[in-house]
């Protein structure tokens, strides 16, 4: 492997591991806020106990997110110095804004939220939960702004020596790419949190312990899960797809494995792209579907990879194709699973339908896979560019950092993160095993809401 591949792998590995944690905390911040709101409205301590349990899970994940997040901000400089030198004046703005506007807010109020329930009072504690939610969702916004600019640069001009100069702050911050990408990403985080919550709820019911809480977790998890899973497909996924079709058409062709320009283009549900022979092996097609999804006309022409110069094709077409298909496929399954669960919840049968509880319990890892695959689609789809149309990834790496040094730190991160992952699973397992504190008096919560 040459230095460039190692720099790419370095960033890919550390960001993929990092994003396992914020996707839960951003979604969970919203669900905890809902639990705190229910506690405030019903004056039922049950919801405060539930919120406290999730705050413990949140805290472990937050700590993991913080410690694995710091390397991300540094790696722009350490491993991608050419990119940083060129783009720092633009994307440094949003990265600094993340520190100034969200990290201070989050870190200040998380301490209060975790340690200050007694001193803050009911309303104060709700406000602390709200501040943590706001901080984490703002953080997501600034990161999406940064990434959206790399996907679709706006608000800049080129200087005499080709340098990139920020010229319109609002065009940069309100990049049209940001809107759908932000919603799609944040709702993806809610999907993860909702699946994890219903998974633990189902686990408690199936083991016949903490059942009061299990039911609450299932009610909230399944309701939020269905809403979020539907919103992932429409309108946010569709909106994001439209952006790609308009601004990165070659990426769309690669995602779909469409090698030749086609009218009434079919969508491939499954199949293996062969880039050498420029065809999709063993495809199962839905005729006309790709034209319809992209242009809302069954007969529309969709440009294939053959319409674009070879050196503008994404560099990892099969991986991009699979990432996209895994994301969409899992997203579809999520809607079905949560739809069925919500139906049974409404019919008051969910808590006794054991096969579905089993499915919900085992479903927790899959939103993580779907969110990771979604980010891989975005990042592999942007290739061969680091800033779309302006700077190639190969021009962005640090020329002064050798392959040997990069491999050294990559291996270091792999080892360290393996240890962190083991510790993390161990501690979360303990918290789940221990469960929420039982209510002091007989539960006053009805079995069905």
């Amino acid at each position, binding site marked *: 492997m040459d230095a460039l591949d190692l720099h790419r792998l370095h960033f890919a590995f550390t960001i993929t591991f990092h994003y396992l944690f914020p996707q839960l905390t951003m979604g969970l911040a919203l669900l905890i806020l809902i639990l705190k709101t229910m506690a405030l409205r019903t004056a039922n301590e049950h919801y405060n106990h539930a919120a406290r349990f999730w705050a413990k899970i949140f805290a472990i994940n937050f700590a993991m997110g*913080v410690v694995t997040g710091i390397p991300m901000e540094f790696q722009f400089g350490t491993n991608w110095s050419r990119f940083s030198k060129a783009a720092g004046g633009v994307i440094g703005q949003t990265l600094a804004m993340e520190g100034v506007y969200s990290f201070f807010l989050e870190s200040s109020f998380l301490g*209060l939220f975790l340690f200050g329930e007694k001193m803050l009072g009911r309303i104060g504690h709700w406000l602390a939960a709200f501040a943590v939610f706001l901080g984490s969702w703002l953080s997501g916004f600034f990161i999406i702004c940064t990434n959206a600019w790399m996907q679709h640069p706006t608000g800049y001009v080129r200087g005499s020596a080709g340098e990139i100069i920020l010229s319109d702050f609002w065009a940069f911050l309100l990049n049209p790419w940001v809107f759908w990408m932000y919603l799609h990403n944040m709702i993806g985080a809610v999907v993860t949190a909702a699946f994890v919550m219903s998974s633990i709820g189902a686990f408690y019911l199936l083991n016949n312990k903490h059942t009061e809480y299990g039911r609450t977790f299932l009610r909230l998890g399944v309701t939020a899960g269905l809403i979020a899973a539907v919103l992932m497909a429409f309108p946010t996924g569709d909106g994001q797809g439209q952006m790609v079709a308009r601004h990165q058409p070659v990426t769309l062709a690669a995602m779909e494995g469409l090698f030749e320009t086609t009218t009434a283009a079919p969508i491939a549900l499954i199949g293996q792209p062969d880039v050498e022979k420029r065809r999709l092996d063993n495809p199962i097609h839905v005729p006309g579907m790709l034209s319809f999804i992209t242009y809302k006309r069954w007969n529309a022409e969709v440009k294939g990879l053959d319409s674009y110069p070879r050196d503008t094709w994404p560099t990892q077409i099969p991986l991009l194709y699979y990432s996209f298909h895994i994301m969409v496929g899992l997203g579809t399954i999520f809607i079905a699973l949560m739809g069925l669960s919500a139906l049974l919840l409404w019919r008051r049968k969910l808590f006794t339908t054991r096969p579905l509880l089993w499915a919900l319990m085992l479903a927790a890892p899959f939103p993580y896979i779907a969110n990771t695959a979604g980010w891989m689609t975005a990042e592999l789809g942007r290739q061969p560019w680091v800033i779309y149309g302006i700077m190639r990834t190969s021009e962005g790496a640090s020329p002064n950092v050798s392959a040997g040094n990069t491999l050294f730190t990559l291996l270091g991160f792999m080892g360290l993160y393996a240890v962190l992952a083991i510790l993390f699973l161990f501690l979360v397992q303990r918290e789940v095993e221990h469960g929420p504190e039982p209510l002091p008096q007989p539960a006053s919560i009805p079995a069905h809401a």
Partner: protein
Amino acid sequence: METLWFCLVAALITGYVVLDGFDLGAGIASLLIGRSAADKRLILKSIGPVWDGNEVWLLAAGGTLYFAFPALYSSSFSGFYLPLMIVLWLLILRGIAIEFRNHIESPTWTPLWDFVFGAASALLVVFFGAALGNVVRGVPLDSAGDFFLPLWTDFNIGAEPGILDWYTVLVGLFAFATLTMHGALWVYLKTLGDLQQRAKRLAQHALAAVALLALATTLITFQVQPHILESFAARPWGFVFPLVALTGLAGAFLSLRNKDELKSFLASSLFITGMLASVVFGVFPYVLPSSTNPALSLTVYNAKAPDYGLKIGLFWWIPGMLLALAYSVFVYRKFAGKVQLDDAH
């Protein structure tokens, strides 16, 4: 405009060293004077609600440096590749140690994380000091503004220096003494009884070491980087900064004798502020001097981002930092007072 941003970045870094400095120093104190698991738990508890917010100053400084001086950010971060990665690993281990230590009470779990917390804090402080030493000494920048330093070569300040040479190690030790004092004064402020007395003695010893090392480091620095003396000669008003540092150190000494806990901690903060301001003033307008050819040095003028971005940055940066300060004040007030073990979470 670029000078203003230079001052703002310097202020963020100073804020980081003063704030995260005391919780890093508390880590060193935990290693040196924490005799029982209860002592260590108390020390951890004193920084528990605030250490994470303190560390955000580092991220805010990094982010601000990134957009205001992108050429400096990219050159220094890639050139100091290995030590930065080691700093990241230490920050990860330290954060995990603080957050995970109290999850399980066992004779194997707690001491392990106490040790990781203390050792990572100590090593971080030495590395941060050495990093400052590198910036003062200068690095072999090439015409593209790049350099790459190994961790060490022959420990001499020659044509091919390493990150660690005798000078930067000296600065690292100075930083170690300073933040040991600072952290011990924090523990002195936040605890009671025997632990508090031990913290006081540690602070007194560290203070003596700081005074000696400050003198030695300053004199040697004038040799290593003559530009600093030139700066003070050209703009004598800058002598106010070393004066602030001296006042801080003397104030810490006197307040410790008078057993004034808060004042001694604030005086130590003043000392750190004065020292860093002196360095920053002395190095200006360089932000990364070249050790081989002064013409290749990075300065505030050739490392800055274009003007529009710097101007627009002021509009969000100032209100944002005021807000951040307000949260910090709020949190510190909420958690003011001595820490005790009764309501262990």
